């Protein structure tokens, strides 16, 4: 049960939901950037245990199935082809041993996901298979995939795909995300908060899995934004002294010393995960109570 990496693309890693309960030791969670696409990919192939998938960035990988497998491609549209024939996104597809699955440039979004039934089998390190590239931990040898890597996959029983209907998303180049103010919004003057919640920010090319740097109007603070280090979550928006916000993403550090003006609603993080440099972001305020109510209605 394995897949051969023929060409990896610029950044393809093994990821799952991330590594939790070790952040108190300074170990980052890592994990997928786009949780919605990740969950869809696993669901489409009947994976229910938080199986590991491949996350590809901008340009996808070319892979050879060394054994037959069910798979599904989700997230960014990377023009997937099986032995040269175009295949659908958000659909379970069966590959025979020896078939080649190739992904090209993303035409919408920037992160593509590939789930195989059974999941990618790399060692579980501290409860997770996610690749933490900064600590060279987890995933496939703690690094991005290279040509020639052979990825084992876990065995799966006989299975018939369920008829799951997903509408393949088209990602917008101007996104709006909801933000719960705090925990340090009091560091910013009223006009600074107004700027943050009314301006449109552009995603800088200097962005990665750790964070999206934003270009746009500076957010004014009362007297600087240095704080005694405080915990960080996926979605924290910190504002360094220059006043340009940074959105902290899946590979975020565990704690940081800049005031955080707000936190992106977790349900809206997939939009940011698929946003490209040059895309714009607008922030809309939501109270913590209203955010909680979204879960109670479910």
């Amino acid at each position, binding site marked *: 049960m394995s897949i051969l990496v023929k060409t990896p693309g610029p950044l393809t890693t093994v990821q799952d939901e991330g590594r939790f309960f070790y952040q108190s*030791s300074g170990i980052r969670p890592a994990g997928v950037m786009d949780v919605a696409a990740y969950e869809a990919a696993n669901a489409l192939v009947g994976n229910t245990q938080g199986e590991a998938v491949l996350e590809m960035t901008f340009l996808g990988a070319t892979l050879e199935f060394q054994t037959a497998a069910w798979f599904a491609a989700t997230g960014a549209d990377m023009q997937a082809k099986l032995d040269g024939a175009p295949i659908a996104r958000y659909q379970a597809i069966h590959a025979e041993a020896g078939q080649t699955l190739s992904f090209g440039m993303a035409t919408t979004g920037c992160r593509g996901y590939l789930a195989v039934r059974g999941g990618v089998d790399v060692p579980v390190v501290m409860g997770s298979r996610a690749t933490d590239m900064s600590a060279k931990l987890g995933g496939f040898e703690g690094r991005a995939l290279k040509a020639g890597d052979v990825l084992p996959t876990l065995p799966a029983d006989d299975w018939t795909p369920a008829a799951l209907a997903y509408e393949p998303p088209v990602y917008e180049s101007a996104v709006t995300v909801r933000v719960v103010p705090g925990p340090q919004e009091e560091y910013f003057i009223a006009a600074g908060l107004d700027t943050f919640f009314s301006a449109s920010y552009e995603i800088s090319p200097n962005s990665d899995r750790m964070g999206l740097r934003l270009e746009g109007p500076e957010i004014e603070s009362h007297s600087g934004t240095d704080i*005694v280090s405080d915990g960080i979550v996926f979605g924290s928006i910190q504002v360094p002294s220059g006043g340009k916000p940074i959105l902290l993403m899946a590979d975020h550090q565990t704690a940081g010393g800049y005031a*955080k003006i707000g936190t992106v609603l977790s349900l809206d993080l997939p939009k940011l995960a698929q946003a490209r440099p040059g895309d714009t972001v607008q922030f809309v305020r939501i109270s913590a109570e209203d955010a909680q109510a979204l879960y109670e209605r479910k």
Partner: protein
Amino acid sequence: MANMRILPAGDRALVADFGNVISEDVNRKVNALKKALLAEKVAGVREMIPTYRSLLVEYNPAVISMQALRARIEAANIEGAAAETGTRRVLEIPCCYGGQYGEDLAGLAELTGLSEKEIIDIHAGTEYRVYMLGFLPGFVYLGGMDERIAAPRLKSPRVSIPAGSVGIGGSQTGVYPMASPGGWRLIGMTPVSFYDPKREKPVLCEAGDYIRFVPISPEEYERQKKEGGAI
């Protein structure tokens, strides 16, 4: 409890914040709260990040509501636990100071006007509290260093500092748990691994521990290093 504010960090985390300070008293409360919540095994909590001044609690809002978690945090008894009486864990960390093991010790002596031996005596004569971990796996933020041996960071950081390097940066001292770029002045090396992903417990210390450095000879360093750096 007094002085604690519970603040939202989005829709799936709360921060129990004790204020924008570095103090042993505050840090004890942070640890006590973490221990109290761990002991209660609160359903839906998937992560806790203690820092100098706050405990971030990440939760699944579909399992426990923000309001219910807030009530659990408010109800946690941390006053008694914060005393930490009789539970102080002190780790003795062997350290080979100076020479090729601590390239910046000689320069630090020049900067501070102290002899190398005086710096070693001061550095090894203090028990340092582990306030928090962060930045790298197993990187400890230690408090309590004597200001006499404080020194600004190097003007140009080194590209790679080997794991086990003991350094001073500003008023802080610490140990590089893995090879990393860094600007701290290196005064010694420990054979002890602060982080080893292959170990059952990958990270040596936790917040609330204390560390004391014990000077060792180069021969002793090499001997312990060969034995794998366990303590």
